[in-house]
């Protein structure tokens, strides 16, 4: 087990470093940002001076090396615009993103698992059909569109919920629903199909044959055996959920990392973009790491290997 953990930890480090490297070069390839920060009538000398000051005049591999050395020490430099330290700025936006993503996750699990279990148990019933139709819809609807529709009805028409911003539970409702919609649909479908698979398994029949009551059969035996794939999917989807948060944050002006990343990218505020990518990649890799450990823990077959 320890071997397994160490191996997976090394993978986490590699993934994060790779993500940083790729983004660093992509962003440099797109040109240097100095022009954006200087008045349009700045002279050549001024631009050169500014580039020199920021270090953009040196060969790219030297810049890269320097960036990486600083980055692993947690130093991503300062915002080109506000001169704030990049990493603390990104970190300060993290709680808001987490709040959004985690509440959306909890909401979707609370809805999806009972829905999926019931759908599987009552397969082909009217209830099942409606739930399947809704999940297809839920997965097909793009979140920015859903977000706008929700704003239109609940904020513009009914005027009962704020259209954006943060600060209270009320502000959380619409972005949370928007972000959760896709996951609800995905988790429900997945729970349903995994449950159906498991319910068809011989060992469920074996349990039934020895007289285990139906409620326990479905609720405990089948659900417990479905949980591994569900946990895996949820863990993998956490990354997607964080990604979805970026768009949702933009639609609802939610002050999280996603919105900051988007703004910084528009402004070509590289240090913040890189610090943001670092944080997002790190979280993504760590989540998958935890998922793997959990997976190994609940599945004795993997643990033994």
């Amino acid at each position, binding site marked *: 087990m320890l071997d397994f953990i160490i191996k997976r930890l090394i993978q986490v480090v590699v993934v994060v470093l790779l993500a940083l490297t790729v983004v660093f070069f992509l962003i440099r390839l797109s040109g240097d940002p100095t022009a954006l920060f200087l008045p349009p009538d700045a002279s050549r000398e001024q631009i050169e001076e500014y580039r020199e000051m920021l270090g953009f005049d040196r060969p790219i591999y030297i810049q890269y090396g320097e960036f990486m050395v600083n980055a692993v020490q947690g130093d991503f430099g300062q915002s080109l615009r506000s001169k704030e330290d990049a990493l603390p700025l990104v970190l300060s936006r993290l709680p808001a993103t987490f709040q959004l993503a985690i509440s959306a996750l909890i909401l979707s699990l609370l809805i999806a698992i009972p829905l999926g279990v019931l759908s599987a148990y009552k397969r082909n019933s009217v209830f099942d059909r409606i739930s399947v139709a809704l999940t297809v819809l839920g997965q097909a609807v793009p979140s920015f569109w859903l977000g706008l529709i929700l704003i239109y009805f609940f904020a513009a028409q009914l005027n009962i919920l704020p259209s954006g911003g943060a600060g209270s539970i009320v502000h959380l409702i619409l972005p949370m629903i928007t972000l959760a919609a896709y996951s609800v649909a995905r988790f429900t479908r997945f729970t349903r199909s995994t449950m159906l698979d498991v319910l068809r398994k*011989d060992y469920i*029949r074996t*349990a039934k044959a020895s007289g285990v009551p139906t409620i326990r059969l479905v609720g405990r035996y089948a659900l417990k055996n479905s949980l591994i794939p569900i946990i895996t999917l949820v863990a993998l989807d956490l990354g997607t959920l964080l990604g979805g948060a970026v768009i949702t944050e933009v639609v609802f002006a939610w002050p999280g990392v996603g919105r900051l990343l988007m703004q910084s990218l528009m402004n070509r505020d590289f240090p913040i973009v890189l610090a943001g990518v670092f944080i997002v990649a790190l979280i993504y890799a760590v989540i998958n790491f935890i998922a793997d450990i959990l997976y190994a823990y609940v599945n004795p077959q993997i643990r033994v290997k």
Partner: protein
Amino acid sequence: MENQVLLSVKNLKKYYEISQGMFKEKIVVRAVDDVNFTVMKGETFALVGESGCGKSTTGRAILRLTEPTDGEVIFNGTNLALLPYEKMRSLRKHMQMVFQDPYASLNPKKSIRQILMEPLKVHSKFDKKESLQKVISILQIVGLSEYHLDRYPHEFSGGQRQRIGIARAMILQPDFIIADEPVSALDVSVQSQVINLMLELQKEFGLTYLFISHDLSVIQHMTDRVAVMYLGKIVEIAKTEDLFNNPKHPYTQALLSAVPITHPKEKKERIILKGDVPSPANPPSGCTFHPRCPFAMEICKSELPDQARFEEGHTVNCHLYSQNKEEINYAISHS
């Protein structure tokens, strides 16, 4: 004990409805279509037939692991098909099933201890200490040991797993066990060990078996009577010896002709059936075997054959014999 009926299956049907989408008509798969037979206390009754003929479905419908569409299953005088859920659940301790695939039939997340304890817990037969004693003794009976208690199913070989499956079925001390191809997933070398174990258990505990198989040599070796199934129906029932010596139904004859000959002097022609087994969703009219039957007559296309009875409970569903019977009846009544 002999000649006492333990189980009697009457007009048992299991139809599966398969929906093909919202606007299309449903397909009805007649997996089990009007099956009748009785099993005597202490005997081993075999159900034989090609893949997909409805053997497993029959077994499951008897135990109500799948709800029968119609028919009666009378076990020790009680009609299981009409039993309310709770009553059925508590009756399950008397009848158990051993499944074909020992890899799939044991819950991979549970240790052997948990797997074997479960039936005892469900029926609250014993307290904890007694249960453990019981579990250990049953493990020894099937040739495993206490030492295996906290292992998980994947740590065992196929044969060992099937022993665990048998232990699990045996632990409630049932009267009746349905064994659905219990050895077909195992290596040939292991098959006979498991079969011998089952035979020993039968002797020791007076068990009655419904033994489902498509392996004729296994059936010849271990069963008392055989029912041959084709497309959801039983076409012939006979004592095992009679069936092998004197198969009457054309389908049985074809099945047996495929078995390797045991005596080199014996000459046997292999009967090759034309065509494939038709789908149970769309079975042929009349005798469902008629498109493949070398003896098919005009009447076979339109009319379902009645059961013809011979000595020693040998029955056959085939017009070849029902016609004879009419002739015999005619001859008798006019003499």
